[in-house]
């Protein structure tokens, strides 16, 4: 297993949001600023790695008929950990992300990786898969959030970069801006892939 090609797989060829179309709800809802995007990305990455490892370790003892409930229980335990840690140490971020932290339980990326990868592969490669997929998700969120924050607020990571003369385009911060940003990024990525 080559870490570089795995990383490329997570960020580009099998990018969860922009290639596979998974996890669009959190990508739309939590990408109004780069800070929120990174917060959500890191939280989901943590859950993804932990659940991949545990599910992979338990893959031989989970009966296949009840595997989905079992996966959800494992995922939910780690989401609870993230939820409580974030509420304790990063209360502002926790408030901004709101319901979307508990909703990581039903994030299709995490369940998707559990079903498609961790339940069939060894612990180490499942851990790597969790890491690269999590990084891919975070990169996608940061890309979407950068477009939205720069156009919609004139700032990047909370720092004003376009000066006071810039009139922010509120639409990009509002929900329609998320759809527009995702659509144009997706179209751009497809175009680049098609030209290769």
């Amino acid at each position: 297993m080559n870490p570089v090609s795995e990383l490329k797989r997570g960020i580009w060829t099998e990018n969860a949001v922009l290639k596979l179309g998974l996890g669009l709800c959190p990508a739309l809802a939590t990408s109004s600023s780069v800070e929120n995007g990174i917060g959500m990305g890191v939280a989901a990455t943590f859950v993804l790695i932990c659940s991949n490892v545990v599910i992979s370790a338990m893959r031989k003892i989970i009966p296949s008929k009840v595997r989905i409930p079992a996966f959800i229980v494992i995922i939910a335990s780690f989401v609870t950990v993230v939820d409580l840690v974030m509420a304790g140490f990063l209360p502002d971020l926790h408030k901004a992300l709101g319901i979307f932290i508990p909703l990581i339980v039903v994030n299709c990326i995490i369940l998707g990786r559990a079903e498609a990868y961790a339940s069939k592969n060894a612990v180490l490669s499942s851990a790597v898969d969790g890491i690269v997929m999590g990084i891919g998700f975070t990169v996608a969120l940061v890309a979407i959030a950068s477009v939205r924050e720069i156009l919609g607020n004139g700032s990047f990571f909370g720092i004003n970069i376009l000066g006071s003369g810039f009139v922010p385009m509120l639409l990009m911060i509002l929900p329609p801006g998320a759809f527009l940003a995702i659509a144009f990024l997706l179209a751009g990525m497809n175009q680049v892939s098609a030209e290769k």
Partner: protein
Amino acid sequence: MDKTLYISSSPHVHEGGTTAKAMRDVIYALLPCVALWIYSFGIIKPSVVMALCIIGCMASEAAWEKVRGLPITIGDGSAAMTGILLALNMPPNSPWWMALLGGVAAIVIGKQVFGGLGYNPFNPALIGRTVLLISFPVQMTTWMMPRTHEITSATPLSDVKIAVGLTGNIPDEIKAQLGSVLFGGFGGQLGVVSGFALIAGGCYLIYRKVITWHIPVSFIGSAFVLSAIFWAVNSSKYPSPVFHLFTGGLMLGAFFMATDWVTTPITPKGMLIFGAGCGILTILIRLFGGYPEGVAFSILLMNSATPIIDRLTMPKKFGLVTQKG
């Protein structure tokens, strides 16, 4: 002598109509309105706004088609017409970048991403206006008063909305101004200042058979009837139907936006339903919605209902009998 008999399917005669010709008719029909608006708001500012809207539309259409490797269609005038309609939907004192951005948004988001003219589900000019209205609410609602060119921050529609919100009644001075509405005496978007210029332009389009009467009549009629009902119930809270018809973008919308070929139903019955939906939604948004003006939203909402209206109002095939039992 060539004795070959050519057989082809109908139609056999083409009357020579093209998209470009129809667009030219629409632009002619808008001329009286444009003239009145220049008279009302001064020459330079509105002309610059309109020129920038048209440039934004045509340049982004050409650039998009160039990048996609498609034939460049700015010659058919549809992008220019979108630019004119967009300009008529903007304050005459809009900043230059807003006019350009509106043009780009109208063409790229409203039209080209769907595949260009004929494939767009929503009216591009209204998409441009809505993007601007949501993005820049302050700039989009800062109007000039006609003739005095004084900058004001409210249209009669928002005056009414605010006053009714505060006191539950329409102030007397707005009632008194009603007479001047007909001749564009109120501040407002460029093109909506004169109902009569728009009606004249609309009649020209109907005469030239660019549009049919169905949508304007049912749009204006349903708005009139619904607002008259509210007015009859409580005339101190709800403005009169005449006020509704001649303020905001209602006339412009009814004749020039809601009659777009691409985004509206093709059957006469469907057009009547479409127009009635626009009129009812407009009045409901104006009286009970969050925004003072609802023409753009109502037309966009009805645009999204166009495919289902078309499907439900499909004419019966000639001679078709539904089997009984």
